């Protein structure tokens, strides 16, 4: 019997006695089964269960689950991600698809022939943009930072003893042309990294995210450096699509007033003839209201180059009272990233931010001993 070496989902190696080839031979998993569990949809916490037939096969980074608090599941070989939570993003996607399908079936033909084909094409383009940007915002890496990069001392058994006191301080550093109103960096005791400014630890994802704006339950994903642009344009195109969903059926319902030879003579008759038009108008208002308000809010935030988190924590204040944005003093928040030009701020957030490489490439082969995928307990200031 040959011993078999397998890589567990937490990255550690396990050596087990191999089974005799005559009586306990493990049947190889069918290709379709392996395809579904190891590439199409991968839950890292269940990865070792589906890897037993090829124990020595190299694992990919996305198949490693350091500890139970990590809640990600991956699709298409680690290229898409989501959280193991209520799939509200699926509901959001379905809510986005329903009005488009109804429009194409019941309204598009009338709009194409009675008003203009361009309106149908423009609506379709906005809707496709909106949906693809929604998918991109929902399943792409928001800017998750690698863990365990800045562990200060040696550690044993996944625990760092005698953490330095300095690592529990908030550090103020000078900013560009501002030696008095600087930026702050703070050590994340969970991820064991010194967080750059505007980086925050998301309690839902249990990860630090670069330029963290907020965790969106409708996307089931954080909104951060790498997908904020797509989130903003998703909001805008969703609102524009909603306008089309409301306005075009509205015109359809009241078109009888513009045509003398119409067989329809009242609004009630028009609604009876075209019930889906009324449905779309109501649907558009109900489902477009929240994205519209959110879009207005983010237009304001991006014009000031401030994140949702910063606004709620510092500008609006945790006690519910608004504080002055430019209030000086020990508890005044100064947004040093505001370029003082609304157009520049808008440009940076809506278009300017270049795409960065993902800090952790999930589709790469997992390297034994890679500490980024190992569980290390949070730093503590004192021994209990």
């Amino acid at each position, binding site marked *: 019997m040959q011993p078999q070496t397998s890589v567990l989902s937490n990255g550690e190696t396990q050596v087990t006695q191999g089974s005799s080839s005559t009586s306990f031979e493990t049947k190889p998993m069918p290709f379709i089964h392996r395809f579904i569990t190891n590439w199409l949809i991968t839950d890292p916490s269940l990865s070792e269960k589906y890897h037993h037939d090829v124990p020595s096969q190299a694992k990919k980074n996305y198949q490693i689950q350091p500890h139970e608090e990590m809640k990600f599941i991956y699709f298409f070989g680690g290229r898409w991600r989501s959280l193991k939570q209520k799939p509200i993003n699926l509901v959001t996607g379905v809510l986005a698809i329903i009005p488009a399908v109804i429009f194409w079936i019941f309204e598009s033909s009338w709009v194409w022939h009675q008003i203009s084909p361009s309106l149908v094409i423009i609506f379709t383009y906005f809707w496709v943009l909106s949906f693809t940007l929604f998918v991109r915002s929902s399943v792409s890496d928001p800017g998750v930072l690698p863990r365990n990069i800045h562990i200060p*001392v040696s550690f044993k058994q996944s625990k760092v003893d005698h953490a330095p006191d300095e*690592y529990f301080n908030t550090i103020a550093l000078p900013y560009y042309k501002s030696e008095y109103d600087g930026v702050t960096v703070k050590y994340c005791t969970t991820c064991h990294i010194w967080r750059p400014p505007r980086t925050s630890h998301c309690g839902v994802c249990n990860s630090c995210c670069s330029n963290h704006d907020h965790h969106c339950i409708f996307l089931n994903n954080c909104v951060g450096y790498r997908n904020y642009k797509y989130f903003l344009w998703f909001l805008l195109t969703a609102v524009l699509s909603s306008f089309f969903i409301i306005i075009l059926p509205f015109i359809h319902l009241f078109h009888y007033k513009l045509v003398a030879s119409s067989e329809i003579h009242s609004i009630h008759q028009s609604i009876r003839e075209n019930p889906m038009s009324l449905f779309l108008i109501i649907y558009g208002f109900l489902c477009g209201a929240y994205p519209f308000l959110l879009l207005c809010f983010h237009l304001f935030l991006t014009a000031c180059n401030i994140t949702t988190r910063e606004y709620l924590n510092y500008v609006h204040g945790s006690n519910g009272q608004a504080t002055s944005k430019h209030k000086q003093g020990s508890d005044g928040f100064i947004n040093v990233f505001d370029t003082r030009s609304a157009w520049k701020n808008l440009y940076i957030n809506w278009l300017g931010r270049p795409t960065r490489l993902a800090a952790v490439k999930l589709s790469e082969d997992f390297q034994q001993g890679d*500490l980024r995928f190992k569980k290390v307990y949070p730093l503590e200031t004192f021994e209990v």
Partner: protein
Amino acid sequence: MTANINDPNTKYAHKPEPQETPTKDKLLFFNYHEFLTSDYKSNQSITTDTSLVVNHFPNNYEAKESLQHSSTRIVRIPRVYDTNRYSDVIPQFSVHVPGKEPAALTGSSSEADQGYEVSGVFDDNWFGLTSLTPLVPGWLSVEEFTAIVTRINQLLYDALNPFDYRNAFQSVLDVMSGGTLSLLVNPYSKKKLLELESYIDTDVNVKLAEKCKGLKVIPLRQSGYLSLDFQVPRPHQ
């Protein structure tokens, strides 16, 4: 003069002192990765209130059981935020020689002139009493270090400048394609970042390996662009 609410003369005569504008201290840059410890074993007669400066760290980029992990350490060059306005978008690293930052612990002038010298053991490793690290001038000269960090900063700026016309143009096309263009074609920023990785791997590390086998720059992608890490041989007494 305290106000007496029952005496109108004092109550209305009382003038509150003008609120003093809180004065702010000028912020100075320092390497926030380093920390002090007084729990160490010394090789000299050092007073108990002198702390050791821990400014090199375990090489956790190598497997714990490996020889590289036990024979090398990491010197971390921190990020700076005062060299360009868009420091939240464009990572930049400190070009100050490690240990010569504005708020670094330099000790006495004689200690500063001596360069890096170990004085005590903490966590089974030797450290000194100042912020100076074994990297400069032990393994790299000031000029070599500055050249490497400056070039890396320049490549990062070229790659991630939001006002670069190439980034702007590709961003517009990416949005118009619903975010699919950047999946199909590597954007300009990613190409420059891969060029940076290649510069570190083929240019810098090859030259450093000629100096010493254990000397290298950790690829920035591996450190998440959070710090510029230099791997150095483990300091000895």
